[in-house]
C-alpha cells in the first residue's frame, strides 16, 4: 500500500527502506518517521524522547500525533492477524522477495 499510495501521488518512494532503515525512503520526514515508529513499536524509552522531538521539530506536533496513531493501529492489527494465523496471500510473496522477507511456512 506504500508503493500504491506513493504512485497515486507521483511521490518517489524506496520501499526497501522499510526493512533497511539506512536507506532513505524518499518521503518527506521519512527517516524521522521511521525512527519514531521504531521507538514506539520496540518500546524503546531511551530512544523515544529524541525520536519524537526530531519528528516534532521537522514536521510538527500533528505529524507526531498521526504517526503515533497509525503505528498504534497497526500494533493492534498485527497482533490480531498473527495470533489467529491468517495466511499471507500469494500475491504478496513478490513484495516479500523485494524486501528480503520470506513468508514463514506457517503463514503460507
Amino acid at each position, binding site marked *: *500500500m*506504500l508503493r500504491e*499510495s*506513493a*504512485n*497515486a*501521488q507521483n*511521490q518517489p*518512494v524506496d520501499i526497501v527502506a*522499510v*526493512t533497511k*532503515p539506512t536507506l532513505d*525512503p524518499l*518521503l*518527506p520526514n521519512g527517516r524521522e*518517521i*521511521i525512527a519514531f*515508529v*521504531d521507538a*514506539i*513499536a520496540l*518500546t524503546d524509552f531511551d530512544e*523515544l524522547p529524541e525520536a*519524537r522531538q526530531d519528528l516534532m521539530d521537522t*514536521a510538527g*506536533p*500533528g*505529524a*507526531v*500525533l*498521526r*504517526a*503515533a*496513531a*497509525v*503505528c*498504534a*493501529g*497497526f*500494533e*493492534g*492489527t*498485527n*497482533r*490480531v*492477524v*498473527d*495470533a*489467529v*494465523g*491468517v*495466511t*499471507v496471500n500469494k500475491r*504478496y510473496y513478490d513484495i*516479500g522477495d523485494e*524486501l528480503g*522477507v520470506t*513468508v514463514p511456512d*506457517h*503463514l503460507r
Partner: protein
Amino acid sequence: MQNAWELPTPLVDPVADEAIQGVLRTVGSPGSFFTAAERLEFAKHARFARGLTETPSSLPPVVASAVARIAVEAMTSRSEHVAAWEQDGRDVLAYIELVAVVSVICSIDSYRVGVGAPLDVLPDPMPGDPVPVIDDRAKKANSWVPTVGVALAPTALSALPNESAMKKPLGIAFYLDDKVVHQYDVEPGRELSRPQMELVASRTSWLNECFF
C-alpha cells in the same frame, strides 16, 4: 511525570480520545465468554507483559501465557498454541475474544506511549455474565480460528461480531476507514500524507514481523 515515555504536556486528539474511551468501556463489559473482570485482567496482564506496568494479573497460567505471547511476541504464535488452548477445555471462540481484548489494549497503550501520555485508567468492571454473540456462518478457512468468509485483517475476529465491532472505531480514529484503505488515491487530509501513513504502517508491521 511518572513514566519514561510521558511528556509534560502530552499531545491530544479529541477524536482518538473519544474512540479510546468507547473501546475501554467495551473492554470493561461482559463479553461472549468472559466476564468484564476477566477481560480487564487480560488488559492488565498485557500491560505487565509489555513492561508498561509492574502489576501482574491473577490469570490462570494458560490464559496468562496466551495474553503475554500476543502482547509481546504475537509473531511466535502457532496453530499448536490454539490447539493447546482447546485441549485445556477452552473454546476456540473464547481465544478470539482474548485476542480482541489484548490487541485493542496494546493498540491504545502504544498510542499513549507515542503521544507522551499516561496509560488510561482501566474502567471498573460492568456486572453481568458473558452472553455468547456468535456469527453462526463462521467456519475455518485460511486461519486457525473460524471467520465469516476469507480471513483477512478486517475479518479475523468476525466470528464474534461484538469483538470485531469493538476494534473498528480505533481503526478509523487512528488510521483510515476500511472503505478507503485500498483507495490509494484518496488523501484523507490527516496530518501526514497517505504515503507517510503507509510508511508508518509498513515499518510497524515489519518490526512486528507481520506480513500485512
